[in-house]
């Protein structure tokens, strides 16, 4: 390949990442299979919690953040599982790996795509949540929690999903691998969401935001470095 100036290389890299994201979005926009399934699933989880926990008015305020995040994580595994399993089943993973692109660009493309899917689901279910639970969920800070929480989840989830697609029991393996390592993320997100709902001060909220950001930074970096070894052959 011709040596190119650094700025050119960066914009090339970003174009590759954008192309992969666009590919996933375009194929989803045509079929609309995954997103509709994710939204319905998220709503079902919410309803089931409502029955299982007997959510009266006072309990609702306390557990709404927990219900929101558990629904998000469960729904997220659906998207993550599909995102890479589909590539493998259709044989397009080999095509992507043969393309003359940086492997990390492939990772970022897939991870950002998964992040976007989770965010799209959130955009749909947050207003519904606001109505169902009668709580102000559409605050800027709340949206920031959603952004940061789902970022870390998509980052680790994409890496682990690329492991389990080769496993024999792949449909059941992803949550088993993913949930234990995302516990800190869940705790921080639930605490931050709950704090924002209860109108906590920034001093109370900031440790959880720091934890969210720290988790995101550490795991995006780790997943970015390790992904290369996953797709090595």
């Amino acid at each position, binding site marked *: 390949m011709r040596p190119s100036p650094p700025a050119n290389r960066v914009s090339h890299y970003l174009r590759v990442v954008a192309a992969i994201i666009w590919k996933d979005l375009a194929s989803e926009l045509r079929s609309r299979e995954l997103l509709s399934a994710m939204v319905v699933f998220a709503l079902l989880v919410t309803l089931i919690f409502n029955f299982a926990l007997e959510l009266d008015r006072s309990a609702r305020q306390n557990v709404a953040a927990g219900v929101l995040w558990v629904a998000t994580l469960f729904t997220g595994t659906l998207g993550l599982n599909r995102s890479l399993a589909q590539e493998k089943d259709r044989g397009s993973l080999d095509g992507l790996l043969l393309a003359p692109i940086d492997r990390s660009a492939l990772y970022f493309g897939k991870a950002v795509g998964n992040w976007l899917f989770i965010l799209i689901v959130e955009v749909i279910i947050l207003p519904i949540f606001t109505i169902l639970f009668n709580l102000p969920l559409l605050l800027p800070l709340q949206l920031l929690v959603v952004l940061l929480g789902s970022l870390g989840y998509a980052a680790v989830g994409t890496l682990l999903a690329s*492991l389990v697609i080769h496993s024999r029991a792949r449909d059941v393996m992803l949550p088993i691998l993913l949930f234990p390592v995302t516990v800190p993320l869940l705790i921080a997100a639930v605490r931050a969401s709950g704090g924002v709902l209860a109108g906590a001060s920034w001093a109370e909220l900031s440790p959880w935001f720091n934890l969210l950001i720290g988790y995101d930074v550490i795991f995006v970096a780790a997943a970015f470095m390790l992904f290369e070894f996953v797709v*090595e052959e």
Partner: protein
Amino acid sequence: MSKASRPVQILNLVTAVLMLAMLYLVFFYAPLEKTMGEVQRIFYVHVPSAWLSFVAFGVTAVCGGLYLWLKRPMLDIVANASVEIGLVFTVMTLASGSIWAYPAWNTWWTWDPRLTTYTIMALIYVAYVMLRQGLDDPQRRARFASVYGIIGFISVPITFMSIRWWRTIHPVVIGGSAESAQGKFAMTDPMVVTLLFANLAFIFLFVSLLISRVRLAQLGERVEQLKARLLAA
């Protein structure tokens, strides 16, 4: 190959002697603790097995990293052996902790940060074992297990920190302890000696088990090779 080499036999013997000596110290040398009585003696098994489980999982993460770099199959065998032994120590820690907790805290289990973190860590490594079982290709299994071993090990301290920000009742006998801790006690010199000796004995136990487990894996591989040769002939 069928018999362990001389140095390994000697090591195993030393380990056995040290474990017996440790039991003697625990039951006859260490003084009776004033408030908790005999049950406190379980501390000398609980603490060494707890910290050696961390060492074992650390060995797995380091061997995983080295495997990804050097691609020596031996490193993967050691990583896997270390996880299995780490899980044995984890179960010992949880069991001995529960037995101690019932008289000391009046409950077998509590959702305390340390207990919860520790259990999540155990689940991470159970998932590690399950991931390995689902993968047939040895090289891919080694690479994927290395990746997950590293991700899992990074997440453990973050999980611990995140849960620690809630209040804890687990006593911190070595180093500072929270005001709310229940069942803490001051260690006298014979207690310190016993604990240190128990740690030494457990280090020998860990190394002995690790060597034996690696040998078992090598013998297993040899059996597979012989089978393959027999079938080919």
